[in-house]
């Protein structure tokens, strides 16, 4: 049996295989492309160690004895924009928003899918509708409402993210709930579970793959989001994108040294996150694209 399977595998591999010469050519072109893809980040990295006076004029040269300033740009920049506070705010807002979105939209999706009424199907279509509305349509009025209700702080913004992010998340969870059999839930209820117990012991564990996808999609959105937190929080409590944009300031010249160092600090956490959960991220993004 095993032998036969191996033979089939070999055959499959062969049918996909290209000749060795072709393989080498493809490999070399892919390697060159990879280098090109990584080059921008590498260039920012080398410039982050150069004196700010030499960055704009000579961005492609390695630091020399004359231009090398060690970690000066990092210490200067971090103080200037309060990078570590920004990192803290970004982390705080992202983690809590994602947690709140995953939990509450899963609960909402379950009841509006299982209760069959005009009201729940209207709700469903409203959530779907919200997915196609661009942020600019509501940005001015949303900021007004948030200020009026005193939601213009790092806790209030989580509520805003739940509201604005619920469209896609409810839609995706609903799609999955529809595909799981209702029999288990009914059995649990007959055995005396109330809906909350049923949801947390039966339904939510089954939703886990979708929950991971939704968590990743929302984490990428909230972590990188610039305009919404800028309008709601202003520049007093800055997330990382706001801090980077703040460095550019008004019309004065930009401190390129600090800018390079802060770009590096902004990218490093993302790369670490990416390399540790790469499998989930790629899967989640594809699932999100196909369903959304």
């Amino acid at each position, binding site marked *: 049996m095993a032998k036969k399977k191996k033979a089939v595998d070999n055959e499959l591999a062969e049918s996909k295989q290209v000749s060795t010469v072709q393989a080498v050519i493809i490999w070399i072109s892919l390697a060159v492309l990879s280098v090109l893809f990584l080059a921008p980040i590498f260039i920012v990295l080398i410039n982050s160690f150069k004196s700010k006076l030499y960055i704009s004029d000579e961005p492609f040269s390695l630091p020399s004895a004359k231009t090398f300033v060690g970690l000066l740009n990092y210490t200067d920049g971090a103080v200037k924009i309060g990078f570590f506070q920004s990192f803290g705010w970004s982390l705080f807002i992202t983690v809590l928003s994602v947690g709140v979105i995953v939990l509450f939209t899963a609960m909402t999706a379950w009841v509006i899918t299982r209760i069959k009424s005009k009201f729940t199907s209207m709700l469903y279509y409203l959530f779907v509708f919200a997915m196609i509305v661009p942020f*600019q349509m509501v940005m001015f009025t949303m900021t007004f409402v948030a200020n009026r209700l005193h939601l213009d702080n790092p806790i209030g913004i989580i509520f805003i993210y*739940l509201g604005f992010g619920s469209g896609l998340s409810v839609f995706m969870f609903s799609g999955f709930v529809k595909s799981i059999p209702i029999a288990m839930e009914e059995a649990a209820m007959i055995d005396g579970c109330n809906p909350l117990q049923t949801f947390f012991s039966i339904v939510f564990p089954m939703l886990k793959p979708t929950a991971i996808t939704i968590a990743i999609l929302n984490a990428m959105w909230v972590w990188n989001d610039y305009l919404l937190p800028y309008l709601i929080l202003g520049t007093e409590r800055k997330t990382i*994108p706001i801090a980077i944009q703040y460095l550019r300031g008004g019309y004065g010249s930009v401190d390129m040294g600090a800018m390079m160092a802060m770009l590096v600090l902004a990218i490093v956490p993302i790369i670490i996150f990416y390399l540790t959960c*790469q499998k989930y991220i790629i899967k989640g993004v594809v699932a999100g694209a196909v369903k959304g």
Partner: protein
Amino acid sequence: MQKALKKYFPIFALPTILAFIVAFIVPFGMGIYLSLCKFRTVTNATFIGFDNYAKAFANKDFLNALVFTAEFTVVSVITINVFSFLLALLLTKGIKGTNIFRTVFFMPNLIGGIVLGYIWQLIINGILLKVVGADLTYNASYGFWGLIVLMNWQQIGYMMIIYVAGIQNVPPELIEAAKIDGASTWQTLKSITIPMVMSSFTICLFLTLTNSFKLFDQNLALTAGLPARKTSMLALDIYNTFYGRTGWEGVGQAKAVVFFLIVAVISLTQLVATRSKEVEN
């Protein structure tokens, strides 16, 4: 079960519904109404009918942004999809190191728009200063092509992953049969692979379409509309109308409604296109 669920409905759905009303339903309704009003701070709005829309369409910046956005969208959709599909073909040949290449190509997608914008500002300005002796703010076409390069760098990896998934779903027997029948590589690609990955094409086409059309952060960071608002895309132009020009809040909201309508038409077209594909299969 329905009865018990209905009793618990508020516990399950109320937090989301409240947040949805506050963050979306109310602002959306107000937005539609305010696009027909003159106002500065929402509370002092007076109804003026379609004046804001007339002003929006007579506004040079808006028309320029509309054309710039449309051109940018067409070029970026074509380039991103061609490059990512070619990459996907190369990555499904069973070459050694495929996983590492895939990891590298996808990575830029996770970096936020503001950070991306400043990374590329450094590089593009560096190249421009060397080659033509001017920077991005000198000529609108520099900004245009700069945004195209940036967008390609960010999106190619993402679309490539979707195409790879599509190509891997093509049954190898089909390719094998075509080879035995003497089909060339190009013929196999044209008559088997491409028709079999049509659904991936639809997805990628619309993802790139809406992503490009709604672009804001990258635009703000790379060019901020310079020179003279010539590289402002629609989202940035709406932002500048709201926050950069006192007394024009109503016009900003009218522009936003127009923007929303265009995005809605694109999305509905996608829905129809995907639905009709599903029926065919």
